C-alpha cells in the first residue's frame, strides 16, 4: 500500500521532489515554480515534474495534506475531509463577516483593478470608504499606486491572499463578466418597457 510519508527513492526527480516538499512545508504563502527552482537550484521544468509527483502523492482523499495550485503558485492545504477538525482548532478571520458591500467592492477591484475608491463609488452609487478599509485590513486588497495627475486617488488591487481564500489559480480563473449578467441591450429594453408602461 502507498503511504504518503514513504521515503522517496533516490531517483534525481524524486530527490528534487523531496526538496520541493520541504520548501512548501516551510512556506506560508504559495510558491511559484520559479521561486521553487531558485531555492532548489534546479530547472523550473524539472521542478514542475517534481510538483506533479508530489501532487499525486498529496491528493484527496489519499492524504490529510493536499498540494494545490493556487494564487499563481503551489501550496499545501488541509484535506477538505479534515475541515471540521481544523475549524475546531482555528477560526477564519479573513472571510468572517464579509458584508455584501465589501463583496461588491471586492468584485469591482478584482475585475477592474487597479481602481480607486471614487471609481468603486461611481459604480456602486454609494461611498466605498468603509468597505475598502475593511478589505485592506483583511489583506484581501492592497494599495497599488495612484491615479495620474496631481492629488490622484489611491488605487487598489487584489492580493495573492484573495486568490488563495477564494481558491483561484489566478485572477484569470474568475468567470467572464459577460457570462454573469444580462448585457446592456437587454437591460435598456427592459428600462424602455418600464418607461413606456409608466407613460401609458
Amino acid at each position, binding site marked *: 500500500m502507498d503511504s504518503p510519508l514513504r521515503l522517496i527513492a533516490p531517483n534525481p526527480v524524486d530527490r528534487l521532489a523531496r526538496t520541493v516538499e520541504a520548501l512548501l512545508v516551510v512556506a506560508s504563502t504559495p510558491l511559484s515554480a520559479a521561486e521553487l527552482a531558485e*531555492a532548489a537550484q534546479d530547472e523550473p521544468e524539472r521542478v514542475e515534474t517534481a510538483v506533479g509527483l508530489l501532487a499525486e502523492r498529496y491528493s484527496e482523499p489519499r492524504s490529510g495534506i493536499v498540494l494545490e495550485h493556487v494564487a499563481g503558485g503551489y501550496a499545501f492545504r*488541509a484535506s477538505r475531509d479534515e475541515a471540521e477538525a*481544523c475549524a475546531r482548532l482555528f477560526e477564519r478571520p479573513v472571510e468572517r463577516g464579509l458584508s455584501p458591500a465589501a463583496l*461588491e467592492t471586492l468584485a*469591482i477591484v478584482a475585475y477592474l483593478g487597479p481602481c480607486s475608491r471614487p471609481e468603486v463609488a461611481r*459604480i456602486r452609487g454609494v461611498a466605498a470608504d468603509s468597505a475598502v478599509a475593511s478589505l485592506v485590513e483583511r489583506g484581501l486588497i492592497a494599495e497599488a499606486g495612484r491615479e495620474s495627475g496631481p492629488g490622484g486617488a489611491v488605487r487598489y488591487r487584489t492580493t495573492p491572499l484573495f486568490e488563495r481564500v477564494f481558491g483561484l489559480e489566478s485572477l484569470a480563473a474568475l468567470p467572464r463578466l459577460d457570462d*454573469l*449578467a444580462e448585457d446592456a441591450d437587454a437591460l435598456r429594453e427592459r428600462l424602455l418597457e418600464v418607461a413606456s408602461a409608466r407613460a401609458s
Partner: protein
Amino acid sequence: MPPTPVRELELDLDAFEGPFDLLLTLLLKEALEPREVDVSGIVLAFVERLAGTDELDLEACGEFLVLVSALLELKARALFPDEAAELADLEPEQAAEELARRLAEYRRMKEAAAWLAERLASERDRWFRLGPAPLAPRGERRLAPQDPAALAAVLRALGAPPPNVSLAHMALRFPPVSQFLERFRALLARRRLFDFDAEVRELSRIEQAVAFLALLELRKSGEIALSQAAPFAPIRVSSSDDERTRTWTARSA
C-alpha cells in the same frame, strides 16, 4: 474703535474686489464661479486684519472659520464634475443609454459579488496556513576578489585617530555690556532722546545684541524709558525722568 464684522472684510482678489459678504452673495447667486475665487487670498486678508488689532476677537475668528469653510466646500464641489448635471446635459435617448450602461455595469458587479459569495461558501472547508509574504530566496552578495594587503591598509587608515579639529574660527568676541551702559548714559546726558537703531547701525551683529542687552539693563534699573510705534519700528530711548515729566504735564493739562 470696535472691530469691523467679518462680513465687511475688504477683499482685493483677482476675481473680486469688495466686502466679503458681497462675495458670498455673488457666489450664492452663481454670479461668480467659486473656482475663480482665491480662498487663500481671503484668509491672508483676514489674518492681516487680525494682526492689526490688539485683541483677539474669538467671535469674529469663529464666524470667519464658518464662512470660509462653507466657501471651501462650494469651491471643492465646483472643482469636481457634477454627474447629475452631466446626465442632464444629455439627450433623453443618450441619458437612457448612459443609465442603462451604468446599471448594466453595476449589475455585472453585483453578480460577480454573488459569485464570490458562493465561491467563498464552497471553499469554506479549504484550510491552509496563513502568514506573512514569503521571503524570496535572496541571491548571495558577491564581492570582487580582494587583496588582503589593501584591506589591511584601509583598516589601518580607519584605525588612525582623527586630527584634532580646530574651533578657533568659532570664537565669538563679546564686548562688555558695561561699555554700552556707559555709552548710552553719556548719550542721554547730552540729548533728551535718541534712536537706538540709528546708534547701533554701524556695529556688528554681536555688538548690536550686547547693546540691546545694555538697553534692557538700563530699562530694568529705571534709568530710561523705551517706546516703539509698531513692531519692528525704531526703538526710541529717553531718560525716565524726562518721560515722567511729560506724563505729569499731560495729566495736569
